[in-house]
């Protein structure tokens, strides 16, 4: 008994940096600050893209990164580590991750009907808000509601991704009133990785889409949001394989993240969770599916792009070598001192000869590249992605609430799917009442003023 107490004490001391007690606590405020910046930048970029003001991917990525740097420099002046937790990437159509071109000339220009997946991340003192959003680049500048909805497999995919994210957020939120309403369906069962997996895959099944490796619903901690170079153990949640870790076995679906993810552990109030859902309407042969899980695409279907070289890298702090190349040493020092443990973009390095140095570091495995991964298969493969970070915020007075740090309130493209969710439990999660879970979306501030005048215009946090 005393041993248990000691262990509990130890966990508490370790987790003081990750325990969320109330929305006013310093940790929560940092999370919210990061989330608001991410939300602001994302909504700004979405608006620019939707209104066709920005079509060059380089512009989008560059603007996103600049805005994040600019906004994070205004807050928490005494905090050293803050800024980009994930460089802005714009992944088009069947690209799943990692496209952020280095120069404007060769960059992709959006065309009509492209599926655009914007991903970015902001962190303040290690408290991270990652966000991804999928939208369809439409041919007109007209308001969205005047255009007919998109239908077909693309609509199914977008619906599935979007609804899966919402359902998972609601499911996670049920842990907040678990003890108050133990008799309800969601009140007396722990929310663990297995339940999350069942929920996501049943939605995917409903919409006849597949889950793409790289999807994950997992707990995140300070500085630890599932970077490729960090191999955590006993992470709560579920991960549908990994994109980055290349298996050397014959079956690439073997030996992935399974052993790092603890699918039995239940979510608890006071935790931060990352919901990252990537889905694709796979229509290829059956060999393209995961042998063990037919609702998941095999990782064989994910291939790095033939021409596009990785531009985003993550420092691997478990590897230290002294480099011969001067630019490599310079880059290493700059990364160690100025970049944090998060991925960084080559263009954000100020060292002369940075591309050469980064290549040398990548050769030596000191930095790990985030490859531009494309999904193969059907004649015109596509993938959609929705990612958000939520806080399971307990409350002393009443039932706690789920705080969606970013991505909330941005309407998805207008799509119409012919499929419909019929499961009552899932319906309850997706309904207006959300099975009794209160959801709070962090609203972004208007960045237009910032772009024009450079002056800060920090608004009060709005509550939906």
């Amino acid at each position, binding site marked *: 008994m005393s041993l248990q107490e000691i262990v509990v004490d130890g966990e508490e001391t370790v987790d003081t940096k990750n325990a969320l007690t109330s929305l006013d606590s310093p940790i929560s405020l940092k999370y919210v600050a990061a989330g608001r910046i991410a939300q602001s930048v994302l909504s700004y970029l979405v608006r620019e893209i939707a209104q066709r003001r920005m079509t060059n991917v380089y512009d989008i990525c560059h603007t996103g990164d600049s805005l994040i740097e600019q906004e994070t420099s205004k807050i928490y002046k005494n905090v050293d580590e803050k800024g980009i937790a994930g460089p802005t990437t714009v992944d088009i159509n069947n690209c799943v991750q990692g496209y952020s071109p280095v120069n404007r000339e060769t960059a992709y220009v959006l065309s009509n009907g492209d599926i655009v997946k914007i991903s970015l991340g902001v962190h303040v003192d*290690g408290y991270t808000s990652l966000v991804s959003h999928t939208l369809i680049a439409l041919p007109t500048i007209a308001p969205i509601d005047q255009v007919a909805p998109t239908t077909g497999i693309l609509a199914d995919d977008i619906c599935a991704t979007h609804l899966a994210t919402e359902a998972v957020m609601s499911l996670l939120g049920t842990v907040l009133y678990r003890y108050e309403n133990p008799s309800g369906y969601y009140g007396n069962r722990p929310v663990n990785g297995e339940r999350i997996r069942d929920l996501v895959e049943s939605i995917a099944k409903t919409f006849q889409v597949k889950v793409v490796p790289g999807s994950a619903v997992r707990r995140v*901690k300070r500085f630890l949001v599932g970077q490729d170079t*960090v191999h*955590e153990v006993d992470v709560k949640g579920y991960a549908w394989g990994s994109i980055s870790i290349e298996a*050397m076995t014959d079956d690439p679906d073997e030996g992935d993240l399974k052993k790092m993810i603890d699918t039995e552990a239940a979510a608890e109030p006071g935790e931060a969770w990352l919901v990252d859902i990537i889905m694709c309407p796979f229509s290829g042969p059956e060999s393209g599916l995961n042998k063990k899980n037919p609702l998941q695409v095999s990782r064989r279907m994910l291939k790095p792009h033939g021409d596009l070289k990785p531009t985003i890298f993550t420092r*691997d*702090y478990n590897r230290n070598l002294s480099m011969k190349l001067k630019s490599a040493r310079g880059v290493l020092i700059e990364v*160690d001192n100025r970049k944090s443990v998060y991925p960084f973009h080559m263009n954000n390095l100020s060292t002369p000869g940075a591309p050469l140095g980064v290549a040398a570091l990548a050769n030596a*495995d000191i930095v790990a590249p985030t490859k531009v991964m494309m999904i193969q298969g059907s004649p015109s493969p596509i993938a959609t992605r929705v990612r958000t970070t939520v806080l399971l915020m307990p409350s002393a007075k009443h039932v706690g609430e789920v705080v969606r740090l970013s991505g909330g309130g941005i309407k998805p493209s207008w799509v119409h799917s012919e499929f419909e969710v019929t499961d009552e439990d899932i319906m309850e999660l997706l309904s207006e009442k959300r099975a009794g879970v209160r959801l709070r979306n962090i609203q972004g501030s208007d960045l237009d003023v910032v772009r024009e005048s450079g002056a800060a215009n920090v608004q009060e946090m709005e509550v939906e």
Partner: protein
Amino acid sequence: MSAATLSSPSPAVIGSSAPANGGSALFTCNSCGVGFPTPDMQRRHMKTDWHRYNLKRRVATLPPISAEIFAERVLQQMDASRKNEEKLLFVQICRVCGNKRFTSAGAYENHLSSSRHKDNLKRAEQLGLREDDDAESNLSGVRDHSPDWSVASSTFSLGEPVQPQPYHAFGFRDSRVGGGGKKSLRRHKTLSSAATSSVAGDDLDSVIGDGVVLGLSDGSGSSSVADDHDAEDEDEDIDSIIARKLQNAVKLPINACIFCSAQNFGGIEATVAHMQRDHGLFIPERDYLVDLEGLLTYLSEKVSIGNACLYCSFIGRSLNSVRDHMVAKQHCKIPYDTEDERLELSSFYDFSSSYPDDYEEEDDWDDVASEEEGAEEDAETVTDVSVVSRRRAEGNLVLDPTGLELSLPLSRLRIGHRSLARYYRQSLRPSTELREGQGTVIAASSRQVLATVSRDSVKERFTKKDWRDQRDKQNRDIRREQRYINQQKHYRDPMLGG
């Protein structure tokens, strides 16, 4: 009795001082060299102290003494014992110096003239006390004179707490040390009581330390001791050895060297200097030594009377033999390693000044400079070090477990040993402190997964190399084949024409 027996030389003529009637006596005493006309007289003689004494002398191969001399010596001894007893009963307590007890007049006088006593006195006067008060309150009276102190040493309680008093195997103690002999007797009851009681008789020959005197301090005790002797015949071997040693003992003067025959030095210091220089005698803890004379006396008696080596358990036959032993074996040193050895000498020392509350500010600690190399960058270190006073430093100084590095509390400097100077001169890049994120990531990362990944990438690299090698080999083979494609003996290139 046969005639042959009668014709043998009569024992009565052995002693030169044989009684007049010895010649015609039929009943003789071989030990005393006397004869008696009747067996009854002889038997009575056997019970006298005189006879016992001569018996002991005989065992020690000493000539017997006459009854007159014996009587004289008894009187002398009683006189001496009374003096010694008075000396023993001397008790002085110095109130000024924390109720310190002095059991000998010499020690008390020494104490009165010591600087420590004067300092304390000065301090006491400032506090309003007078020395007169102390003198009046001094307990110069009679010490508790219980029968326990008499020869009946068997009543000494064994259960008494062991006091840190030195004990010597022979019980020889200088009386000035102050009751040391008595206490040593108490501690080692069995041995010392045997020694005391048995030596008592022989002790009449010479004036010995108080350990022996105690045995005769009670007038009636001597006879009772004597009665015990019938039962302690087996002890007579030891007794006789002790007695012989006592008799052969050469009392070394205080200004004589313990280890050689050099004598008549100018003073104690000169003697000590000689022994230190020529024999390598080192007196431990010299700063806390308060009774140098007592220490030297104790050592010299140990050597001269006990004929015992100072350093090992060797016991020589004579003073010269033990001196030869000590010089040859380089045993001219005082053992001071174990607890017992320190306790043996502790009465000559006073460590109270080393206690923390009595601590006095000492000089600056400036000899560290010699520890450092004279390198330029060290100059700053040295000046900083000398500022740190020893007292201040002792509180927070931290010595490296290896003993080669000393951390100073004030300046955060570290002083290294000169043997590592070549490493300290290196200008290494300071170890970078991990940022919070890096630390978190490294702590959370499981190396196991990483290891498999990196090992596989190496394997992959090797596989690529194999492919390259195989391709190169194929190319080489092709080139070689092409070289020998043309098999014609006199080949002319048609392009060159006719």
